[in-house]
């Protein structure tokens, strides 16, 4: 099962995401921003980092990379896409997900092991969780405050499209404690926490993140 990870100029967590896919039992496939070739992958991860230096706005320039044209078309046809941190920001800038990520309330870069609650386990990336599961996964960002209009928030909440919510203290001022969302179809998921950094007890606070990667492999088999 081939899962792609895109490297943009300034991506940081691409190698961790590739590794997580391998540990979950998939075949990790590196993809490059400057090519529109998806190399026959069956799902794709947009990793964390500071693509194009995050100049202008986070994800604003990456959204126009050649690989994104292919991903946007594929995503509109149900192809599973996971955006992590900077990847989430790119998905919002691409309008594959609603809302936007803005500067953290308090202006601090927040790096911590974050308690989270699973709100939606019907996406290909979260199907291995149970609704209500408590996870601990690292967050590390300066612009992770999820903002959207009141109508968009109502739409997300009423359609059950909030995937992860911050448990305990809201670390960044995100509306409704939102840590991750999905699109109407459920194939595109964006999360601020880094599941690829919580896959082994030696290096992570938990192994709670691995289920993102095993979930998508199971979803692809079952399809």
């Amino acid at each position: 099962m081939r899962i792609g990870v895109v490297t943009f100029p300034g991506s940081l967590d691409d190698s961790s995401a590739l590794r997580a896919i391998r540990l979950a039992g998939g075949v990790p496939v590196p993809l490059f921003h400057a090519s529109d070739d998806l190399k026959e992958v069956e799902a794709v991860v947009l990793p964390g980092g500071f693509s194009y230096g995050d100049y202008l706005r986070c994800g604003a320039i990456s959204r126009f990379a050649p690989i994104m044209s292919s991903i946007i078309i594929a995503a509109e046809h149900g192809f599973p896409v996971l955006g992590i941190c900077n990847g989430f920001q790119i998905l919002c800038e691409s309008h594959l997900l609603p809302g936007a990520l803005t500067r953290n309330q308090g202006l601090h870069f927040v790096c911590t092991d974050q308690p989270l609650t699973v709100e939606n386990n019907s996406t290909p990336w979260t199907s291995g969780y149970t609704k209500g599961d408590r996870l601990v996964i690292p967050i590390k960002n300066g612009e992770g405050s999820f903002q959207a209009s009141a109508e968009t928030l109502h739409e997300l909440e009423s359609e059950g499209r909030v995937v992860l919510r911050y448990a305990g203290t809201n670390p960044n001022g995100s509306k409704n404690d939102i840590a991750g969302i999905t699109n109407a179809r459920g194939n595109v998921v964006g999360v601020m926490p880094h599941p690829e950094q919580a896959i082994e007890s030696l290096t992570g606070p938990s192994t709670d993140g691995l289920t993102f990667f095993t979930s998508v492999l199971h979803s692809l088999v079952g399809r």
Partner: protein
Amino acid sequence: MATIVVEVMLKPEILDPQGQAVAAALPRLGFTFATSVRQGKRFEIEVAGTPTAEQLAEVEKAAETLLSNPVIETFLVKVEA
């Protein structure tokens, strides 16, 4: 040569922690005039000659597509001599 200026501001309903930090710093320096501060971006785009209506329409399009994110920001295009 003329300069086309694009000003981008966060929408009023979007939290602006940078503006808030500036608003909090002003009184520490004895400046007590501000009831609130919002911080934005300014792009100065040089073009040859007087900008045509067509060029301005192109800049509007660029401002909407790249320079601003209409989900959270508004923009204003103007010409400066």
